[in-house]
């Protein structure tokens, strides 16, 4: 094992230790609440990244899976009269339903590319939101309540924290494995040039659909966790257009297509957003409209000044620091490839 691998493993161990220790050190529910939300979004942003980040198909329909996972758990718990800790057995069902939705969704949407794909995902998203409003079994505008969990208020958040932490860890590990595998290579080939990948024998539809379904499975599962945690789902909260854009922003802030990027992005944005909307007691900030303007300005700053994301930009800085004084060696012009010839304005 060389030095850099040892360092990386040690760093990973430290991060894992901090994550496990967090609810014991900062044990008040206010703090663990940040943890639960942060980890839910780490999971979703990483799941989004496995499909959209690797393949380049920017999906704005991730909330379809999130909301469907939540609604599945809610409807099943209501119709099968389940309560108590047993309802957690429904989480895999939510994930399976979300995956089943991803099949027709993907078969339709993945036929088209780029902008058209984005708009189809938005359209499918709105179809699901409207169905949640109008079907007879979804509870309409008042949504669905989650079964009551007779847990103590002081430690209520902790099981959810560890559930979200476990899901996030599995998702990150999956993303890492996929990125190193042939499957991940095929996904990235699709991002670079789909027609050429097809010509070289990549079964593009099958690869895209598999990644889409995997992403849906994880998102549906964590959607169920989120539902049991906040104990209610509404059409406007389960299928939330802001949700879709926020996870894209998280991935972009950290670095699309990297493993750590979406994790870092989610851990910066979600607690920040939560603090802005719930806890900030600076007078003019507490005004909801001002915080909306601030959020928009933050978006702009991120996209205009850190366009490639924290992780790739940070890597470049480290490289520069290491090669200080000496001319940087750039094998076969990797540095120049940042601006491809086909780029427009």
């Amino acid at each position, binding site marked *: 094992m060389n030095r850099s691998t040892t360092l990386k493993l040690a760093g990973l161990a430290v991060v894992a230790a901090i994550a496990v220790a967090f609810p014991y050190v900062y044990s008040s529910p206010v703090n663990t609440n940040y943890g639960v939300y942060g980890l839910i979004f780490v999971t979703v942003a990483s799941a989004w990244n496995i499909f959209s980040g690797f393949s380049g198909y920017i999906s704005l329909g991730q909330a379809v899976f999130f909301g469907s996972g939540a609604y599945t758990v809610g409807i099943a718990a209501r119709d099968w009269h389940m309560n108590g800790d047993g309802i957690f057995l429904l989480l895999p069902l939510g994930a399976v339903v979300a995956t089943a939705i991803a099949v027709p969704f993907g078969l339709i949407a993945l036929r088209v590319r780029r902008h*058209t794909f984005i708009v189809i995902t938005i359209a499918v998203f709105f179809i699901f939101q409207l169905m949640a409003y109008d079907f007879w079994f979804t509870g309409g505008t008042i949504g669905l309540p989650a079964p009551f969990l007779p847990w103590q208020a002081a430690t209520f958040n902790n099981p959810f924290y560890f559930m979200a932490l476990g899901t996030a860890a599995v998702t990150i590990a999956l993303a890492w494995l996929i990125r190193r595998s042939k499957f991940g290579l095929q996904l990235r080939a699709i991002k670079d040039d789909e027609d050429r990948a097809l010509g070289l024998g990549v079964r593009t539809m099958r690869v895209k659909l598999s990644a889409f379904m995997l992403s849906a499975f994880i998102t549906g599962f964590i959607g169920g966790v989120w539902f049991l945690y906040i104990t209610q789902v509404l059409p406007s909260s389960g299928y939330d257009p802001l949700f879709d854009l926020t996870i894209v922003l998280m991935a972009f802030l950290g670095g699309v297509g990297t493993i750590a990027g979406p994790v870092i992005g989610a851990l910066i944005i979600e607690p920040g957003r939560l603090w802005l909307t719930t806890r900030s007691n600076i007078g003019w900030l507490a005004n909801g409209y001002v915080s909306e303007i601030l959020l928009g300005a933050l978006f702009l700053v991120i996209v205009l000044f850190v366009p490639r994301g924290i992780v790739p930009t940070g890597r470049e800085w480290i490289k520069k620091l290491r090669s200080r004084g000496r001319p940087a060696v750039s094998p076969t012009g990797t540095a120049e490839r940042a601006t491809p010839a086909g780029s427009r*304005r």
Partner: protein
Amino acid sequence: MAAEIYRAIADGILIGGVYALMAVGLTLIFGVLDIINIAQGVLVVLGAYLSYSLSARLHLDLFVGLLVTVPAMFIIGVVIHYAFIRRLRGQERTAMTLLVTYAVALIIEGILYEIYGPNYKELNATYVTNSIHILGFYLPYIYLYGFALAVVLVAALYALLYRTRFGRSVRATMQDETAARLIGIDVNKVAAITFGVGVAVTATGGMMFGATNGGFNPNSGYDLISRLLAIIILGGMGSIGGALAASIFMLTVESLVTIWSPQWAIIVFYAALVIVLVVRPTGFFGRAPVRAQ
């Protein structure tokens, strides 16, 4: 029953004209700059609020007010392009422009909330409330005026694109940006003016939206943008005539389904988009995409 159907078709066609006014800006910007302007929905609402201020404070006629709002929105468009859109390039441009225009939408929405508050406003004029009796049913004058305005504006945009020197450079940029640059077209200027024109046309769409929608507030933009996107995809992205045709088609479908069930009408709207794209991925009037190299 038959009367209801005729009525629904007439409504669909006329409201389709209003939607065309909102959608042509979006499709024009897409065609030339290759970006989806998520802020379009909020820009429509901004146009409506500008018209509202002019008519409520200065008592200007809605159509006369357009002489002020259209140039104002043109400037806003050019500024947005100059400050934010121009800077974006590279591989992830598609997604980044989405995020940037969404951020612009959030900021404009926040400012509108600050100024006007969350209460619903409506544009008023005699021709908004009065109706004309033709072919057995009553139609508000504003629908007829709006439809006429839509047809005139689409024709004017066609004239601009196909009969002027500027239009030729716009079309050259649409076809091949690098080649356009090589023969001396200032591509950045073309893009900025196109963005401005796209937003300026939206001012008229905003005025019509404010007069026909039965109330609007700063939040109305979100529902709009998804409908407008569905329309321009269906019409073939970048096609101005396609936007008009798709608006009329979609709104007629929606208005016909409303007879049967108002709450499912909007789903049919999106479902129509999905079905059409399964059969014809480039929309009604879209050209097959050139493979990017």
